[in-house]
């Protein structure tokens, strides 16, 4: 363990740590562009120069490993002068079109220019012009003029995805990032090159020109796209509702977690938020009698649900929960099943098409909380419930979000089963072919509109936080189930997600001792 001194502060770091990371541990920022902790070291941008007491010239901090007795100075006059010259060099051919650049506001070229820039440029020659607004693939747009050739994107495609679509072509100041002939940036992680691009050279085509970044609010969340549970940040646009065509969720960005997703997320997860602001969102409870559709208030809908559940014998009622629901919702489903006295609870609906999986992040199970649903004891036989519904043994079914008509089951049989139900209750975020058949439709809040926890495939319980208000009258599922329970006469004290989680942790051994505070930002593993 080498001990070194950075700016007069001593620190001991693991062998092999470079000076940028060692300084980061002390809270000292060494400016850099090409260095990324998840990628190999290129030493390309030369911005991370620091002074060493025994070196005749400034040295790059990214490719210098901390050594015993090393004395590093990150803020000498010589270092500042070096940074200024290097920034001047990076900006020689940069178009400075910040007003039209989507990166403006979160651009490291802007940030370091304000801190370390040479404010009077000495460059008199014309700038080299390169291609602008070139689509590299379905998600990424290239502006070669803005590129500072840090090669992070090239290294990402070579080292992380192994697809190698990108390269640096031509020489000298005509060098530019581009696709190899015949290649297209279509790998499943292509959106990450936008995140790691320190400047505005690579921008997101989905987000392009939608919202300026300074209008965004952020909330920490968990991706609901698959069983991995990647840590993400939800960026929402609420201040200027006419931006982004009125969509409230502007984009999702990965959030670093050392053991789950590191710095990355897949494109499917990154662009999997469209349903939140889709026109198909359910915004008010509905009762359907034949062809007649009545909009309800919650004060009418909750007693209607309770009455419907009371009308049936316990063994005639089944609940089809969803592994897309949070642990809190699933615990509420279980409380409801116990109150009703039914054992017919299930959550597994086989998808119509098998999911893809790879070694990096993507899991075949496209549900964020399958493990949680298993641990909470909801693992019944969904196919048997549907069969009993068709046979008439089950008369009342509450479906949580599933589109059972587009599952792996024969659609005709599922349709017949649903139409046989005397009472079909549907709760979910968006309208579907099932909600169109349901007698009672209850709008549920999307995951960005509420708090909760999900358990990923490894058993890591992670929290997602509320980024938006629920659309219309939508309620989190735990809350609407809780209101039904209260109407049925059950003693329910939980109103917030955290209360449900407390009840769950007290009852389920796998979650014993967990609280929202102990889960924190990094999650907590369930007990084996």
């Amino acid at each position: 363990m080498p001990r070194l001194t950075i700016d007069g502060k001593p620190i001991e770091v693991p062998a092999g740590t470079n000076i940028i990371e060692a300084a980061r541990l002390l809270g000292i920022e060494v400016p850099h562009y090409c260095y990324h902790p998840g990628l190999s070291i290129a030493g390309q941008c030369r911005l991370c120069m620091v002074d060493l007491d025994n070196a005749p010239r400034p040295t790059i901090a990214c490719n210098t490993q901390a050594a015993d007795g090393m004395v590093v100075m990150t803020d000498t006059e010589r270092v500042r002068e070096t940074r200024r010259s290097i920034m001047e060099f990076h900006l020689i051919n940069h178009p400075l079109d910040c007003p039209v650049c989507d990166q403006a506001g979160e651009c490291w070229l802007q940030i370091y220019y304000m801190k370390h820039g040479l404010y009077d440029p000495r460059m008199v020659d014309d700038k080299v012009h390169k291609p602008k607004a070139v689509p590299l693939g379905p998600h990424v747009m290239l502006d070669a003029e803005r590129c500072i050739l840090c090669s992070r994107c090239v290294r990402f495609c070579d080292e992380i995805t192994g697809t190698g679509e990108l390269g640096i072509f031509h020489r000298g100041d005509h060098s530019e990032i581009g696709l190899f002939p015949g290649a297209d940036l279509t790998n499943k992680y292509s959106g990450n090159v936008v995140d790691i691009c320190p400047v505005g050279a690579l921008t997101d085509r989905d987000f392009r020109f939608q919202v300026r970044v300074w209008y965004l609010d952020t909330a920490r969340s968990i991706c609901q796209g698959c069983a991995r549970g990647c840590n993400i940040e939800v960026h929402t646009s609420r201040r200027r509702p006419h931006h982004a065509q009125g969509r409230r969720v502007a984009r999702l960005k990965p959030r670093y977690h050392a053991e789950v997703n590191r710095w990355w997320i897949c494109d499917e997860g990154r662009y999997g938020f469209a349903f939140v602001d889709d026109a198909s969102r359910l915004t008010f409870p509905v009762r359907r009698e034949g062809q007649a559709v009545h909009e309800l208030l919650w004060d009418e809908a909750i007693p209607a649900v309770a009455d419907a559940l009371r009308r049936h014998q316990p063994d005639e009622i089944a609940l089809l929960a969803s592994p897309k629901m949070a642990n809190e919702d699933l615990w509420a489903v279980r409380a409801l099943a116990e109150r009703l006295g039914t054992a017919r609870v299930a959550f597994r609906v086989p998808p119509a098409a098998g999911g893809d999986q790879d070694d990096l992040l993507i899991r075949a199970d496209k549900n964020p909380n399958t493990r949680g649903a298993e641990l909470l004891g909801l693992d019944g036989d969904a196919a048997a419930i549907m069969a009993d519904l068709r046979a008439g043994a089950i008369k009342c079914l509450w479906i949580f979000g599933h589109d059972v008509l587009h599952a792996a089951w024969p659609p005709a049989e599922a349709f017949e089963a649903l139409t046989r139900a005397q009472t079909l209750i549907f709760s979910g975020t968006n309208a579907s072919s099932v909600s169109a058949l349901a007698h009672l439709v209850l709008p549920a809040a999307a995951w960005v509109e509420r708090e909760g926890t999900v358990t990923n495939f490894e058993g890591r319980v992670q929290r997602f936080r509320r980024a938006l208000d629920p659309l219309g009258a939508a309620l989190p599922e735990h809350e609407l189930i809780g209101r039904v329970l209260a109407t049925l006469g059950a003693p329910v004290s939980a109103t917030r997600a955290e209360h449900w989680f407390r009840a769950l942790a007290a009852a389920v051994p796998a979650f014993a001792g967990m609280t929202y505070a102990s889960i924190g930002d990094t999650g907590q593993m369930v007990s084996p």
Partner: protein
Amino acid sequence: MRFGQRFYLAEVVSGIVLTARHFFANMGRHIAHALGRRQARGAVTIQYPEERRPMSPRLRSLHRLVRREDGSPRCVACMMCETVCPAHCIYIVADEHPNPEIEKVPARFDIDLGKCVFCGYCVEACPEDAIRMDTGILEFSAYSRSSMIYTKEALLALEPAGADGRPQSPIPMPARRTVS
């Protein structure tokens, strides 16, 4: 209130005396001026709207959007004015420009003059000199709030005021529309 002031009559009479004094003094001066005494000057009435007072060239009047040579807006929808606007009265929606050198263009650029405080920050903030407040137009009252909203097309059609400060464009009459 003094005792005398309680009887309004005395105050009314003193008001009429004041008004009459100004009236006759002005009339006397105007007559003297007309009879050849050039140094005598009475109070002047400007015959608005045929006559207009001279206005400072720095006056902030109705906004306009500056056009490129081909008539398209010079604005690149960077949202600097929308961001700096203290009244939040500018509404811009950006779109892709066919020319990648320009890249960005406003699909919608509305100013809600019912909210605008005429601070001129939008003009200050604009990196493209695409918005100016030099039309000389001060008369843009309307019968409804929605017709105080000026669209991109209306703002693009405006011309700068002439050298005498008089507006070159007719006062625009925006169609009824609402901010969504």
